[in-house]
């Protein structure tokens, strides 16, 4: 008997639907069983899937947020005071200007049961410095000449006296040498083994990473038993996840989405000032009108700083007095900061003979177009014309970092060195010949060079006070505001975010 075609089609379609229902893809990795504890489990929405779970490779916020819970760092910053405190290293001393000796905590074990030794810590540094790994963190540790470990003693020598070494070591996660060498880098990335408060359970690449509490951890037992990090790239979807109860906390909220959350009874906004600073940088070498310090001074008086903070950032930002945040070591507290004075700005432009001249503002879609446009409007108010040149980020970087300095006159940017130190801003942004700098002043360079190799904190602060004094005069850049990190969270979550945007789940508590 011939089966009518329509029935055959229906049968095929039915099989296809059944097959679809059946082939729900299981997460890769181990079992997703929880510890059996009645304690709560946290679901956190991140803006993207961590680029790497191997702490020797990427160090973007989303990767950090996940893997720093799996690994222990050599040093730690107290989230309240931002002071460097013991973590894996319990004590440290400097035996000569270029040699540091660290004593590591006894009895720390990786989650595979092997003991964590100074050799593992030394290996963790060596592999980042090894060109073969092509680690993006290489530049953060490039001051290090060598790292050696024996027993529980780690010795680090630097190429020059380095006052920021300890800062960067708070971001160094220690990996198990034996396991990495046995598994290989690619496999370790997929199944990271650390000694931290949480251990890796499973992942769905591009979607989620599941961790559970490490009950053998040396520190105080975290309250949260397990955590699922989810990658949710759309900001509107992260808000929907919070509202529908799918997520307990969501990272990377914008000021606008934060105001959306304040209306919900069971949600709250958590925010903290970070070391990220919004700034304008001038081309003082081939910028046309902005080669003239009077024009730069006029622009510094043309910006309506208060309105930027209250209207565009909805109050999730703080004023600064330089291209640096008060969190950084070496912040020049004595500087008066910037003033908004349109009349004086106009007269400065006239004195400089620059009225009606066009300046080019280079930007990329990475930077908030609203801020760029309101700065454009502010500057046009005092008699200059501003032409915005918007290119994609790769082209923007190529232009701005070109040694020919022909990228335009002014650009808006955001800066964070993840080091809480004046050097991390002054050197890469304004020192002669660095990739971001279109400014050159030998006396400023001399002060920054000297501070780079000065260990004594008081002397360094003095040098930076002078260096930032020069920047306040010359104005190769203007600090606009200090940016807040904004999270949306369930009211059940108790947590105070910190300046480093570190997402330490061990510091969080979840009520019922």
């Amino acid at each position, binding site marked *: 008997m011939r089966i*009518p*075609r*329509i029935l055959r089609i229906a049968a095929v379609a039915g099989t*296809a*639907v059944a097959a*679809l*229902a059946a*082939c*729900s*893809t299981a997460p890769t990795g181990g079992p997703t069983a929880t510890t059996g504890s009645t304690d709560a489990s946290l679901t956190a*929405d991140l803006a993207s*899937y961590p*680029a*790497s779970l191997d702490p020797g490779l*990427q*160090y973007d916020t989303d990767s950090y947020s996940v893997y720093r819970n799996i690994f222990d760092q050599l040093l730690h910053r107290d989230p309240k005071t931002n002071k460097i405190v013991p973590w894996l290293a319990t004590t440290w001393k400097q035996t000569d200007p270029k040699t540091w000796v660290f004593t590591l905590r006894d009895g720390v074990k990786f989650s595979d049961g092997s003991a964590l030794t100074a050799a593992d810590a030394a290996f963790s540094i060596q592999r980042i410095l090894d*060109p*073969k790994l*092509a680690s*993006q*963190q290489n*530049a*953060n540790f*490039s001051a290090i000449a060598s790292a050696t470990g024996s027993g529980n003693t780690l010795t680090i020598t630097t190429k020059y006296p380095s006052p920021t070494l300890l800062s960067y070591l708070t971001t160094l996660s220690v990996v198990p040498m034996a396991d990495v060498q046995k598994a290989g880098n*690619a496999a370790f*990335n*997929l199944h990271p083994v650390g000694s931290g408060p949480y251990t890796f359970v499973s992942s*769905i*690449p*591009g*979607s*989620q990473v599941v961790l559970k509490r490490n009950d053998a951890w040396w520190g105080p037992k975290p309250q949260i038993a397990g955590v699922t990090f*989810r*990658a*949710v*790239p*759309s900001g*509107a*979807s992260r808000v*929907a996840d919070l*509202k*529908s*109860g*799918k997520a307990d906390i969501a990272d990377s909220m914008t000021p606008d989405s934060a105001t959306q959350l304040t209306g919900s009874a069971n949600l709250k906004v958590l925010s903290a000032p970070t070391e990220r600073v919004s700034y304008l940088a001038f081309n003082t070498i081939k910028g046309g009108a902005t080669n003239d310090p009077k024009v730069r001074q006029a622009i510094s008086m043309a910006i309506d700083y208060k309105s930027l903070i209250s209207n565009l950032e909805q109050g999730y930002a703080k004023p600064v007095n330089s291209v640096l945040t008060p969190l950084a070591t070496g912040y020049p507290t004595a500087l008066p900061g910037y003033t908004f004075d349109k009349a004086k700005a106009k007269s400065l432009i006239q004195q400089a003979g620059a009225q009606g001249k066009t300046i080019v503002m280079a930007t990329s879609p990475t930077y908030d177009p609203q801020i760029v446009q309101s700065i454009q409007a502010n500057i046009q108010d005092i008699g200059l014309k501003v032409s915005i040149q918007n290119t*994609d*980020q*790769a*082209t923007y*970087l*190529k232009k701005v*970092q070109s*040694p020919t300095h022909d990228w335009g006159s002014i650009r808006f940017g955001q*800066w964070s*060195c993840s080091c809480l130190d004046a050097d*991390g801003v002054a*050197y*890469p942004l304004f020192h002669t*010949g*660095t*990739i971001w700098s279109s400014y050159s002043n030998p006396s400023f360079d001399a002060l920054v060079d000297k501070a780079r190799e000065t260990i004594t904190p008081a002397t360094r602060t003095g040098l930076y006070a002078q260096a930032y004094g020069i920047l306040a005069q010359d104005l190769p850049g203007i600090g606009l505001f200090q940016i807040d990190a904004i999270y949306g969270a369930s009211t059940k979550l108790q947590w105070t975010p910190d300046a480093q945007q570190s997402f330490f789940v061990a510091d969080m508590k979840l009520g019922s």
Partner: protein
Amino acid sequence: MTRGAAAAVCRYLGSRLGQALIALFGVTTAVFFALRLSGDPAQLLAPQGASQADIAALRHQLGLDDPVWRQYLHYLGDLLHGNLGYSYVQHEPALTLITQRIPYTVNLALSALVLSAVLGIGAGMIMALNRGRWPERVLTPVVLIGQAMPAFWTGILLILVFSVTFKILPSTGFSGFDSLILPAVTLASLSAATIARITRGAVLEQLDRDYIRTARAKGAGTARLVTRHLARNVSIPILTVLALEIANLLGGSVVTELIFAWPGIGQLTVQSVDGRDFPLVQAIVILAAVVYIVVNFVTDIAYAVLDPRVTTTGKAAGA
């Protein structure tokens, strides 16, 4: 089948295969050079405070300081060995990263395809067979709205209704069958509208033909008319649209995957293009080209099966 006809089929298939290989070579070359014109990945990958020397070192490690022609030969050599390269950003083989994502994209694409084919063909048939009557007047605006609503809007709307307000379906992510429903509906709404319009047009064109009048005169009911007489004759234009939709859907739906945090190829594409992750972008583009070529090839064969005139005239579809 006669020997001559078999030879014709073989020639036909052979020439289609040859064209496919030329197309694939063109795509691999175009993507390679287009990417090299688009910016320097080393600058994007280096930390903010990196020096000129750090960036140069990174460029060297990635092999980007070689002359472009040497990079190109190297790349072609790797491709011939089946090596699609190693992601700059994620430090994993590009092929591994893609194959991890394929099941999700295939899952979503096929669900959306089945949904849109059933809804689209059904709606199109109903509209054509009820021309000028109320079913068409009701369905026409529905189809128009489906066509006009962009995925980013439909998606968020569905999330707000079904996840935030009624809390019956998960908002984002992959967590089994129920998490598939909203993204599949979002993705299907656009395709279904297109398929409905094409189906309506194709059916209307046939309804005026003599054979339909004859069939009606012989007393065939609507069901028999559709299954026995219309289906085969309207299948070619519908199949053409379906093939295009399959290829589009399998290439990964960027917007829908971003909104629903769906871990498919679409999301991976956006990330890899943003980060100028050359090997990964190349691999994704090559994969998408292969999907298009295979789908087209299969479609051509399906034409021949459904409409024997396509093979007997041989080159009609192939030339």
